[in-house]
């Protein structure tokens, strides 16, 4: 079965087609929501942002030129809106200090138990990265974005994308080490 492409749907949305909007929403809302939720860590706020993202898609559909994939375009909008929320909340500084502050729970009973499951510890550490590092890890691993696409979404050079990914992974290794898992890297 052939499905209508996102680009065609956006063309219809530009013409005021609400059904096309619903189709596009159904196709992408879960991933956009998860991307926002990982940045904001609040379900209610993430849902509000999600609604705003798709309202922007409705409003800006006419300007969409198809230079990037529709999913990439939507993630760019989502990122911009999520960061606006973070700034309003006073969390504009997306650096490792945030993660460092959160990460000082090395040997609480929960994590001691979790040590038995390396995967669970890794997931726990992923939640404790800074927003900047969570963002790049998610874009690369979960949203399957290329170096070029990440650069477009985040608004940084491609070389910086690779460097940032390296430091995000390095931080992840440090958090794991704090929980007794030494990966021998970096």
């Amino acid at each position, binding site marked *: 079965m052939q499905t209508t492409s996102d680009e065609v749907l956006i063309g219809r949305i530009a013409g005021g087609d609400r059904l096309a909007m619903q189709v596009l929403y159904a196709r992408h809302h879960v991933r956009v929501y998860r991307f926002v939720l990982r940045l904001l860590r609040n379900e209610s706020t993430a849902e509000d942002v999600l609604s705003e993202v798709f*309202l922007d898609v409705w409003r800006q559909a006419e300007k969409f030129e198809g230079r990037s994939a529709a999913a990439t375009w939507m993630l760019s909008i989502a990122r911009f809106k999520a960061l606006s929320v973070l700034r309003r909340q006073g969390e504009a500084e997306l650096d490792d200090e945030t993660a460092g502050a959160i990460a000082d729970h090395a040997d609480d009973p929960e994590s001691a138990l979790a040590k038995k499951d390396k995967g669970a510890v890794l997931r726990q550490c992923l939640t404790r990265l800074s927003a900047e590092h969570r963002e790049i890890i998610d874009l690369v*691993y979960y949203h399957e974005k290329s170096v070029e696409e990440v650069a477009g979404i985040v608004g940084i050079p491609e070389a910086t994308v690779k460097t940032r990914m390296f430091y995000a992974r390095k931080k992840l290794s440090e958090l794991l080490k704090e929980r007794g898992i030494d990966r021998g890297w970096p």
Partner: protein
Amino acid sequence: MNTANDGERRDIEDLLPWHAAGTLGRRDRERVEAALADDPELARRYELVREELAQTIHLNESLGAPSPRVMETLLAKIGAEPARRRRASIDLGARVREFFANLSPRTLAWSASAAALAIMLQAGLIAGFMLKQKSAGGYETASAPAETAGEGSYALIRFQPQASAADITQFLAANKLSIAGGPSAGALYRVRIATTKLASSDRDRIVKALQADRVVGFIATTE
């Protein structure tokens, strides 16, 4: 690393997350695969990347989905937006793009062949129609056509490409038109719209009425 210096190893290592996610271009993918085959330490680090990839997916998939409330809120907001003004020319272009975007390459190929066949059939049938009209009028020499300029009123017409020969025949008969010449460049036919020389205003009125027919793509009066 056996085959590359530290700088190159770092370059390759930086690409491992994208290699694991399958988002590298062919050239980089081949570079990484070659390095992984040749460097056990790099291969070990690649396994760490794969672990991260698996757990990132696991984590994200466990986040659930937004409530239906979001969709309702969104639709309510969209409903409150000002109505869109659609420009016909833009819509037409978008529709054409959409039409072709929705066709598979195989369908496109068949469509192009069918369109070419339809045009040939249309041209053939119109030519046949003209010959039939001429033969009905009896023998005539090439130097002495039955109808010459000045003996009637004429218009240049281009038919819609999708119009069938039957449509065109019906259109000509219903409007008592006869093809006097063509097709010339731009698939224009010269049609007689009256057997007498009409006043300019009368020719314009007839042409305007013919323009409304669905088989007509273009029509204008001519001498």
